[in-house]
């Protein structure tokens, strides 16, 4: 039996991330064992819910390593929890695949730490590329004060200059706020503003989108991958969400992909299985866990052993593995293995997703 | 009317009433005297149901009272003016009185309130003041008046004269006497044993949780032991 450990934020403020991640992992383990496991060996998943609390995450990581004696860890839904787990994994020399966005996780490279989501910075870059193409030069930013929003805000501000774009208004909202019209009113009134970007997750972006419609702001609205799921359209309301653009993964547009697309088969399979099992629409975040699990099992298979060091080496040698976020090719200097092509710029039209060419 | 037999009660593991036998007949005024800590208050608390009974029986108008929860005892006609006054400090004087008649919504409530104001005119003056702002003696008057608002057939008074000016002390005893005419039975716990025994028909002496003496009030007043131990004469 091969023991894989995971700690994700299945409850708490980051349950938007952790809940689909947990469900995905459970589903994939079942699938894998039904198909005969890895090299004939069963896989056991030890899954903990750290509720988004970094302190708990560290305790669970210790528990996974010391008590459950797992061969690798997946998890850390947020950057905070990930950073807590890293110290433990590095100490114990157990491979760890993170599901969080920050670039600090893999830059600088730490021997035993990997991650699957494209970085927040890449999301910003994808958005700014699209803005640049539309000749937008002045934008307003409105982000949540939670870890996701704050990290996106910082990363976007760091790279925005590269695209000749200027942020002329920068506002935030609390993760549980009920009304963002004051912030939007201020942004709307900023000199020469051409578009608004709202990185965040949870209810915030839905409320922003609705307030946007309420105030009849007719500037392009960009959201982030934080809300890349069908749920967002429903919560924001199809009318209000019309025309919203965001960088998403292939997962959301599985049916729109041409058959030639290498990701098509993978994302379609995951989407069908997940939606059948849980009854909830797939989203980007479950996809991260999906990819992490694929990378790990692929590595264990190739390593032909469940020795952590061997697994680590095999993960680093991952090449051309197709996941929901993109095609992963890792190296000793790149523990992420994705490029910007992992993202697709999506636009909401008539209550559904379309791919922006 | 009220019969107590072998009543025991305890706070935690410490028993403070060790089997009290006591009887109050209809229309009677009965007083209980005793030193500090004898258990007088505890006895009254048992009667009104706010103190658990660990043994013995209480019978009121022929029915066992022990299983009746405190809030239902007033319905049966048993009202109490408790030790420490226990008024609703945050409510106005008038609201206190109105709540005294919580069980009633008829016109008599207003009349009773007028009677109460007549008995203690100061309460009328202060009717809109939060009761917590009253002076000690005024609060005592309110506690008595509130108990009367419940139209009791049997009234339990715990040291009603405490904190009252001398002129009012005599008035209170007059009121107690007057209740007799209204057919209200009274069980009176008093430190002013002299005054209490003078208005009472019968009396009990309580010592550390037991009844040590009982008899007609006139006899007790004359008893030298009582005179020395409680009347200080």
């Amino acid at each position: 039996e091969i023991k894989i450990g995971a700690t994700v934020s299945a409850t708490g403020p980051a349950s938007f991330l952790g809940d689909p991640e947990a469900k995905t992992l459970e589903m994939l383990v079942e699938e894998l064992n039904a198909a005969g496991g890895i090299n004939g060996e069963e896989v056991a998943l030890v899954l903990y819910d750290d509720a988004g609390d970094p302190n708990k995450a560290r305790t669970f990581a210790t528990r996974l390593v010391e008590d459950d004696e797992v061969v690798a860890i997946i998890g850390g839904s947020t950057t905070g929890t990930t950073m807590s787990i890293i110290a433990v994994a590095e100490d114990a020399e157990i491979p760890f695949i993170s599901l969080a966005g920050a670039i600090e996780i893999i830059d600088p490279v730490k021997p035993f730490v990997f991650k699957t989501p494209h970085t927040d910075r890449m999301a910003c870059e994808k958005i700014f590329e699209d803005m640049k193409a539309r000749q937008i030069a002045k934008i307003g930013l409105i982000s949540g004060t939670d870890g996701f929003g704050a990290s996106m805000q910082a990363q976007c501000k760091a790279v925005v200059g590269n695209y000749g774009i200027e942020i002329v208004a920068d506002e935030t909202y609390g993760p549980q706020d009920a009304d963002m019209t004051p912030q939007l009113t201020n942004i709307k009134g900023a000199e020469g503003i051409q578009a608004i970007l709202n990185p965040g997750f949870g209810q915030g972006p839905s409320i922003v989108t609705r307030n946007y419609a309420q105030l009849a702001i007719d500037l392009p609205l960009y959201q982030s991958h934080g809300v890349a799921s069908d749920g967002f359209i429903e919560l924001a309301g199809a009318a209000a969400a019309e025309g919203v653009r965001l960088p998403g993964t292939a997962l959301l547009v599985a049916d729109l992909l041409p058959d030639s697309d290498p990701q098509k088969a993978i994302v379609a399979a995951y989407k069908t299985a997940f939606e059948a099992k849980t009854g909830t629409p797939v989203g980007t975040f479950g996809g991260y866990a999906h990819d992490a699990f694929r990378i790990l099992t692929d590595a264990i298979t190739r390593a032909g052993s469940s020795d952590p060091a061997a697994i680590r080496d095999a993960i680093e040698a991952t090449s051309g593995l197709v996941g929901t976020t993109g095609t992963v090719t890792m190296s000793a200097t790149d523990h992420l293995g994705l490029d910007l092509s992992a993202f697709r710029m999506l636009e909401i039209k008539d209550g559904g997703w379309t791919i922006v060419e | 009317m009220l019969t107590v037999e072998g009543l025991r009660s305890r706070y935690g593991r410490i028993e403070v009433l060790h089997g009290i036998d006591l009887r109050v007949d209809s229309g009677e005024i009965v007083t209980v005297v005793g030193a500090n800590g004898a258990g007088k208050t505890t006895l009254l608390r048992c009667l009104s149901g706010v103190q658990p009974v660990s043994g013995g029986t209480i019978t009121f108008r022929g029915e066992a009272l022990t299983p009746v929860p405190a809030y239902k005892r007033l319905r049966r006609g048993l009202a109490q003016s408790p030790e420490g006054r226990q008024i609703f400090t945050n409510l106005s004087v008038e609201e206190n009185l109105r709540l005294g008649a919580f069980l009633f919504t008829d016109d008599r409530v207003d009349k009773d309130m007028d009677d109460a104001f007549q008995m203690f005119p100061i309460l009328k003056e202060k009717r809109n003041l939060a009761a917590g702002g009253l002076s000690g003696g005024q609060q005592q008057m309110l506690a008595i008046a509130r108990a009367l608002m419940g139209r009791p057939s049997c009234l339990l008074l715990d040291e009603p004269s405490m904190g009252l000016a001398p002129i009012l002390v005599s008035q209170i005893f007059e009121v107690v006497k007057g209740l007799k005419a209204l057919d209200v039975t009274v069980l009176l716990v008093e430190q002013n044993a002299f005054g209490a025994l003078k208005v009472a028909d019968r009396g009990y002496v309580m010592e550390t949780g037991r009844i040590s003496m009982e008899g007609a009030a006139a006899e007790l007043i004359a008893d030298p032991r009582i005179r020395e131990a409680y009347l200080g004469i």
Partner: protein
Amino acid sequence: MSLLQVEGLGITFGGLRAVNDVSFALNPGEIVSVIGPNGAGKTTLFNMISGVYQPGSGKVKLNGEDVTAMSPHLLARRGMSRTFQNLQIFQSMTVLENAIAGYHLRESGSVLADLLGLPASRRRAALAEEGARALLARVGLERAAEREAGNLSYGALKRLEIARALALDPKVLLLDEPAAGCNAVETEEIDHLIAEVAASGVAILLVEHDMKMVMRISNHIVVLDHGEKIAEGDPATVSRNPAVIAAYLGTEEAAHAHG
């Protein structure tokens, strides 16, 4: 100059003149009683003197120093101590601890010493405990020392308050109805205690409705009605005053007071 001087003290509560222009003086070893009908303003007067209420007008002088509206803990330092008509007991502490609390000013040192449990701090605490036990014996509560104070009967609590107030070793002691809830015999005991304390040179200001006690031990009586001083003098004079009889004593009590 008297030890405690009250000059023209007054206060109003939402239009009601609870106390108006009351003056008197109190000397060491003297017992001055304040009497008057319910609501006359006696407790309010006490509250102003002891810094619980801020007087609207007038002055309180202690040992010649103006202490009007001074915070109670500072008054305590200057030797003033009191009991309460509405009991103020530290309910969840033991009887003994309640009494020791009265030694606060004499036993307390620095927090740091207390945190570290330094011998000096422990020594002071031990002294306070010794004194407190003696005081409890004096009010007849020695056997209840280890009981939780909230569990005592009303009369016992009254006596505990007196013990606590005495623990301060006060120069001026304010007692608000110390005998309420005590029978005639118990009242006499308190009576003796107060007389003893006064004899040791403490100035005592007393509010009490038990006329026997008041007449027996007071050197001087101040009578309040509706917040105003309506009479004052020695017990005999006051108890004969028709205004006092009408407002407060009633004819029966007045007869008692003489007989």
